[in-house]
């Protein structure tokens, strides 16, 4: 049957579909099994392969194996050079096609034109979704991929942030970085700035020194057939606090922001020279104090610089800020003035049960402590305190989620191990869930009336490896029940976003050490299910073919 299919042009579209299915099945199903279930997954892969192969009669099997291996080899080869420059990609591609055709002619024994057709199909698939990101397709479709275009390694993962789009109500724009390519005459412009603007003189000097390591701040939003990009304006950046883009290797490096014309540029410098850091390190008796001061001075410097560039002077969150140890501001017309040990306002959330109050509470964080402050008119006070320890410090790495659908938020805290806390009516904390895997971490949530879906980076079930993959979970009866798994590593800085639509949530993420960002949307096509169904159909076809042959005998 296979020979019949592959040797007629009219049936070549079926071979194209088979090529796409083979790659999808390998990436979504086989890779998923081996990652999640270790050796058991490998056994499952072997079993599924044997079932597939032996479903077909012997005369079909040979060509089936050769064609399948050819498709997978070409797909792996294409994946291996996606990170190279465009000119090298073209050269590589031409060489690859020649080698693939020669190999294919020898192994698969199909005509060169038919093999070329298969290679083109796989290449087009690569344009649709890069094969290295294909694991995401089990749950998401990739709306946008952006590369930083910088050979500089100073930024381990590109910072991403979201701001309100002024032209599309309820929708958001992405703010991120691009590697800056120095322009002709740019150094002269900076020299003029140095001479004419004393306030910017030092920045201009540094900008000249760091010209090869600079980044442009840009916004990305839907436009035309895809996405458009433009330089972020100070007015747009004013929506963001300094730390959203200013935590690049914090506190060891300090990002600096400068206005050049209407554009905002960033460069990164070391907060301390290697010699100073060595001095700090070689005094363990005072290192805690020294690093704390470094953290404070770096944060202060970035914050002041950000305010200077964007004009953002207020640190208020939901109308509330902390000044000299007091939470002050207005919440829904009510003046708030509560003494607190917090130094940062995390936001206003319904942390207490609705049976206690319908007014949400302010959540603040201090040095290894979280405080919940009631905002009830005339009764503003600290109602609960959650303290961390040195072994399990409470950083700002917290996600707020209504896991039970009861309009009360739980705190998903990324200590090591990660934990879920719920505040009781009496002000005590319940530890609802503790991760058994140290590398498990919460990222964000997709809101849902019956209980939010947690988006997490979770290690595989049967493994001691800390490698994390994207996963979605619901909290039910004290356990996290998986909703989806997308086998992609190195996704960091994940946010629920509303970029292409004001209604449907998307996922904005940066990738660690790969200098690219992605916008993902829940896939409308169940590729994983389709792939699995096609597998079953193909096995049935094989068995029917066997039966048909036996009946014929």
């Amino acid at each position, binding site marked *: 049957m296979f020979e019949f299919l592959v040797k007629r042009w009219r049936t070549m579209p079926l071979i194209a579909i088979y090529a796409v299915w083979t790659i999808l099945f390998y990436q979504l199903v086989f890779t*998923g*099994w081996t990652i999640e279930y270790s050796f058991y997954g490998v056994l*499952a892969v072997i*079993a*599924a392969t044997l*079932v597939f192969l032996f479903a077909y009669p012997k005369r079909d099997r040979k060509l089936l194996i050769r064609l399948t291996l050819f498709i997978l080899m070409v797909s792996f080869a294409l994946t291996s050079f996606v990170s190279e420059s465009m000119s090298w990609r073209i050269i590589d591609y031409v060489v690859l096609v020649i080698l693939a055709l020669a190999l294919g002619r020898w192994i698969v024994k199909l005509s060169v034109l038919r093999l070329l057709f298969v290679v083109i199909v796989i290449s087009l698939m690569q344009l649709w979704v890069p094969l290295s990101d294909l694991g995401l397709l089990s749950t998401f479709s990739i709306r946008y991929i952006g590369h930083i275009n910088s050979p500089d*390694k*100073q930024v381990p993962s590109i910072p991403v942030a979201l701001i309100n789009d002024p032209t599309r109500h309820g929708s958001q724009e992405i703010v991120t970085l691009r590697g800056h390519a120095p322009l002709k005459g740019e150094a002269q412009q900076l020299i003029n700035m140095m001479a004419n603007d004393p306030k910017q003189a030092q920045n201009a000097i540094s900008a000249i020194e760091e010209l090869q390591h600079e980044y442009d701040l840009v916004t990305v939003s839907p436009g035309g057939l895809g996405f458009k990009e433009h330089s972020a304006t100070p007015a747009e950046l004013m929506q963001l606090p300094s730390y959203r883009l200013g935590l690049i290797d*914090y506190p*060891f*490096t300090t990002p600096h922001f400068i206005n050049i014309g209407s554009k905002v540029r960033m460069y990164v410098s070391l907060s301390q020279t*290697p*010699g100073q850091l*060595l*001095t700090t390190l*070689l*005094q*363990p*008796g*005072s*290192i*805690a*104090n*020294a*690093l*704390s*001061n470094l*953290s*404070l*001075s770096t*944060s202060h410097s970035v914050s002041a610089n950000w305010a200077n560039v964007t004009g953002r002077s207020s640190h208020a969150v939901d109308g509330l800020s*902390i000044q000299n140890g007091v939470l002050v501001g207005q919440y829904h017309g009510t003046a708030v003035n509560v003494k607190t*040990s*917090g*130094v*940062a306002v995390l936001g206003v959330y319904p942390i207490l049960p609705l049976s206690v109050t319908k007014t949400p509470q302010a959540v603040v*964080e*201090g*040095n*290894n402590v979280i405080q919940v402050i009631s905002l009830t008119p005339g009764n503003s006070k600290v109602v609960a305190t959650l303290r*961390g320890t040195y072994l399990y*410090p*409470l*950083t*700002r*790495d917290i996600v707020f989620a209504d896991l039970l659908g009861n309009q009360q938020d739980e705190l998903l805290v990324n200590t090591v*191990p990660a*934990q879920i806390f719920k505040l009781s009516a009496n002000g005590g904390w319940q530890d*609802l869930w*503790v*991760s*058994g895997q140290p590398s498990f971490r919460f990222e964000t949530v997709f809101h849902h009336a019956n209980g939010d879906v947690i988006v997490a980076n*979770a290690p595989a*079930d049967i493994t001691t490896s800390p490698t994390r993959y994207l996963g979605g979970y619901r909290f039910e009866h004290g356990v*996290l029940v*998986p909703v989806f*798994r997308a086998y992609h590593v190195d996704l*960091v800085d994940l946010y629920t976003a509303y970029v292409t639509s004001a209604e449907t949530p998307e996922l904005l993420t940066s990738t660690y050490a790969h200098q690219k960002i992605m916008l993902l949307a829940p896939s409308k096509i169940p590729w*994983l299910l389709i792939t699995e169904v096609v*597998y079953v159909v193909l096995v049935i076809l094989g068995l029917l073919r066997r039966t048909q042959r036996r009946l014929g005998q």
Partner: protein
Amino acid sequence: MKKRQFGLWALALVGATVLSGCNLQSHPSVLKQAIITREVDPKGVLQVLNAISKMNALKTYEVKAQIQEVAGRFNRQVNFYGTVRLPNTVYVDETIGGNDYLVYQDNKFAYYRDNGHWYPMQPVTDLQPWQSMRALLVNNPPKVVYSLPEQTVTSWLCNVYQFTTAAQPSVMGTFVQHGVTGGKVPQQALYTVWVDTTDGALRQIEVQSTVGVPQLGTASIDATQLYFGYNQNATLPVPEDLLSQVEKP
């Protein structure tokens, strides 16, 4: 035939359903493991001070260190690896972010290399890390020292001591940064010290602390340094590319 087909079907079905994954159970016992295994050790401070005293006989040592800071959603780290010949020669590789640096110092001839270029730096004057620990223990003796179960660090079986005491400013007078108002500088830090069971020498120190940063919240700090290669005949020649750039006096 029918039985065989049924078997194949069953296998395919198991394969298809296995991807739905397992539920993640809660493991509250994980949190208690680090705490319940430690005991109060009245002689703990003395043991650590004795280990520090043994280090005074060193002429050379190697150091491998890592500083981690978790702030916001990120865990950033700096790594060091190098050799020190007392009293004032240093050859250390540093990785800060994605970049590598090299520090070379011979008395007042002190430079660091960044992206292939050497820059002069202020010489590091105190190259005996244990002295700052001694000053800490003398000035701010911990009220309680805990003894943890023995642990093997690299290949050395060690006694482990843990205590909480002041996160003091630099006591050696070489490098002090002034705090910024508005933050919550830590009053205390958790120190863990590993002492070799064989020769009583200091092997490793870990310092854990937190700081409240305005707008940002808690930043947690974890610095670990391992000492080894004691009194090995380490030669620390000037890097050739440094000599080609700078003439050594």
